């Protein structure tokens, strides 16, 4: 599977994303600088990694979501190809309008880094097909602004459509309805605060994130 990892100034999980993708797919993803206006020919999977693009200044993900590469990502998503945003990548995808809602400052006001218990709410997506529905995972989180917000109507709608993919077992940040990860209506753009790329290896963070990348491989 041909993949691309988008690199913004301030991205800091780009190498981790690269290594996780390479480990699972056996192919090195292209590292795409934010000032490019096109994705490499033949790109299937796009990952928008975590970090602090533009220092998290103005709003997390706001400036990255207006960078040169974004129209290409939006167009790529419109073809139904898989796009995954993790942590800052999730913030960028909501800011760009590819995903509903917004991510606000954690309710506790502090940065929180811990291994978060998650439940797989929807195992019927191209990102989660290798998980059992209801599976309990332990995946690292590390963020200051992961408090998912959407109006009640939007929340009801995404719940109803099965767009809530991961839910926290113990809410770390005040997220509405314990939401940790969501997918778009078409089922090809997913955003999540927990870091699956930090959980693909026994020597670091466990292996509960492996199946996510393996699911993608199966669907490609």
């Amino acid at each position, binding site marked *: 599977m041909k993949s691309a990892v988008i690199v913004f100034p301030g991205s800091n999980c780009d190498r981790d994303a690269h290594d996780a993708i390479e480990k699972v797919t056996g192919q090195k993803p292209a590292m795409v600088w934010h000032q490019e206006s096109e994705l490499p020919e033949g790109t299937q999977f796009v990952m928008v990694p975590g970090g602090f693009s533009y220092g*998290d200044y103005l709003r997390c993900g706001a400036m990255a979501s207006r960078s040169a590469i974004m129209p290409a990502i939006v167009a790529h998503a419109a073809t139904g190809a898989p796009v995954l945003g993790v942590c800052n990548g999730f913030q960028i995808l909501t800011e760009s309008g590819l995903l509903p809602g917004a991510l606000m400052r954690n309710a506790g006001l*502090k*940065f929180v*880094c811990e291994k978060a218990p998650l439940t797989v709410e929807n195992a019927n997506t191209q990102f989660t097909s290798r998980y059992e529905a209801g599976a309990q995972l332990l995946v*690292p989180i*590390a963020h200051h602004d992961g408090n998912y917000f959407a109006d009640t109507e939007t929340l009801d709608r995404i719940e109803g459509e099965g767009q809530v993919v991961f839910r926290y077992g113990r809410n770390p940040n005040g997220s509405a309805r314990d939401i940790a990860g969501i997918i778009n209506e078409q089922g090809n753009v997913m955003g999540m605060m927990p870091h699956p790329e*930090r959980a693909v*290896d026994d020597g*670091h*963070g466990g292996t509960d994130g492996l199946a996510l990348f393996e699911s993608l491989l199966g669907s490609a």
Partner: protein
Amino acid sequence: MTQYAEGITAEIVKEHGINDAEYAVILDRLGRAPNLVELGIFSVMWSEHCSYKSSRAHLGKLPTKGEKVIQGPGENAGVIDIGDGPNGKKMACIFKMESHNHPSFIEPYQGAATGVGGILRDVFTMGARPVALMNALRFGAPEHKKTRQLVSGVVAGIGGYGNCVGVPTVGGETNFHAGYNGNILVNAMAVGLAEADNIFYARGAEPGQPIVYVGSKTGRDGIHGATMASAEFDDQSEEKRPTVQVGDPFVEKKLIEACLELMATDAIAAIQDMGAAGLTSSSVEMADKGGIGIALDMDKVPQRETGMTTYEMMLSESQERMLVIMKPGREDVAYEIFKKWELDVAVIGETTDTGRMVLTHKGEVVCDIPVAPLADDAPKYERPYFAPEVRAQLNAKDVAQPSHMGEVLLKIMSSPDMASKAWIWKQYDRHVMADTTASSEDPSDAAIVRVHGTNKALAITTDCTPRYCFANPFEGGKQAVAEAWRNLTATGADPIAITDCLNFGNPEREEIMGQFVGCIDGMAEACAKLDFPVVSGNVSLYNETNGVAIPPTPAIGGVGLIPDMAKRAHFGGMREGDILLVVGETEGALGASVYLKVIEGREDGGAPLVDLDAEKAHGDFVRGQIRAGRLSACHDLSDGGLACAAADMALASDMGIKLAHEGNVPMHGYLFGEDQGRYLLAAAKEDAIAILQDAKADDVPVHVVGLAGGTAVTVNGAHPLELDRLRAAWEGWMPALMDQLVEAAE
């Protein structure tokens, strides 16, 4: 010769921290009186912070050489050999610890944040990608009115910076003591990795090379920060607030990537970060080490504010700036890379063969001084000192025996220095870069960070027991080094080298200087015996307020290597039925112990003595047992002695421990004594037998002390402390302390 240049007075010279004798040297070297710019430059170069004038005479006693040492003290950071990397190329580990004490007390968030930024620059300046951050923090008494706000600000600052630049903060230590009420300690350590044949030094520049400025623009930040770090506090210090710099971790992150990209091009002759005294120290350093001169055109310095003077530009401590001397004709390479990363870049001058530092501003020469005296003639003082009285040892038999050891253990484990620090480390990204095998959250005596793409890992620890250093500077200095060595050993690592951050009071007081000398002498002996040289470090003096000094705190940052990730240990793997063994002898050393402070409210008694031969023998034995795969858990014994190590192991393994006490040592001394050179091991019965046999053959004292099982820690079947209760108290102390802050705010 006129004594003072126009506009300069004796008062101005004094304000620059230059005494009469020092001023006479300047007059002699220049052959005339210095102007304000020149005075400012001498002032920062000869400050305690840059010149080590009070400490240099003693630092030379520390062993700095070793088989694995590539670069010892004198450069931005120390460099050690860690063998082959993923591509078969020789790898080096580059590390240093540095203080940011005064700025953090005045503005905790920015002080701590810029401390992290500064130490990261020291490491990537040398060509290393930073892979881990550690921090050793000392705060005042928990109940002191400023403590909570300082803890909260410092922790947020460390996290705010480290999290954003994407370097994991993997460990450290936090102590609370009234001795730090007026002077907290924020010591940050950075560790990086580089290919051993691609390391960058301050030396290496030649005449005729362009000097390139990169990074953030220069503003009026922190003018005279370097001299502030060398002056005692008084009640007016809070007025000094505007001198504290503001950090921008986003720029730092871009600077790391841009510098590493530039370093891969072979276009650099020499490179320095602009730390304390920014443009002055970085340019003087490279000129001095290269034996050359420099000419700078101040109009070309990127400026954030209008109307800046040369004095302000040369002394500014604006953060996230680097000075690079390029090979001639290669400036374009730097321009291209730094423009890509949206960073300021400008050629601001060139190197010369004059040996002088010549600064031009608005067409006029505003400074023209020889470089050599700035570095070579820096004052060096043999400060008078007397050795502080060494406190007498305390016999455990003379300390009242408590009736219920479980209750005592509960109280100690939930005391400020022993309680869980999860409140702190949850605010640090410990996992970014995906190589953290063990961090603060894990049951490990040292943080473990893999060497990316290999089966090896670095083990990293910070250690110091200030209450021992206060009781007996020599033994305390020894102990700090020995404990770092022990913590690395307990993970299965080969300890390699240390960095140090020596925090003391006013060296002009003989008693304080005596503490400093005693600690250095003790450290030197331990480094030599344990083959654990010092490769980098930092001295922070004048940590006192209104004549009250901090406890002597020589913080040690130790680095070791785990050659094979499959052969390592932690203290969370104890299984039911495991035999518990203690390596080393227990005599019940309660002097200056946690027990004495928490239970008796006393801080007297002598520090435990460190037998370095035994330390080495016991450590080598334990490492051998780890590599033989015999241990299910291993933990060093330190604060709180056997009982607290057992409690840690029980909590981490979620398994009770039945301790047995026999012999002549009183039970409280046996359980809580802090005798040195000891480890607690857990092993299955057959392994325990083999360990005891090996111990006999190697003549290492190993004793059976208990058995794993149940849901409580017990002693001789009595004194039970249920793990659930222990865990709640251990985890609960710090949130309870900090929630008071929230209450105060709400």
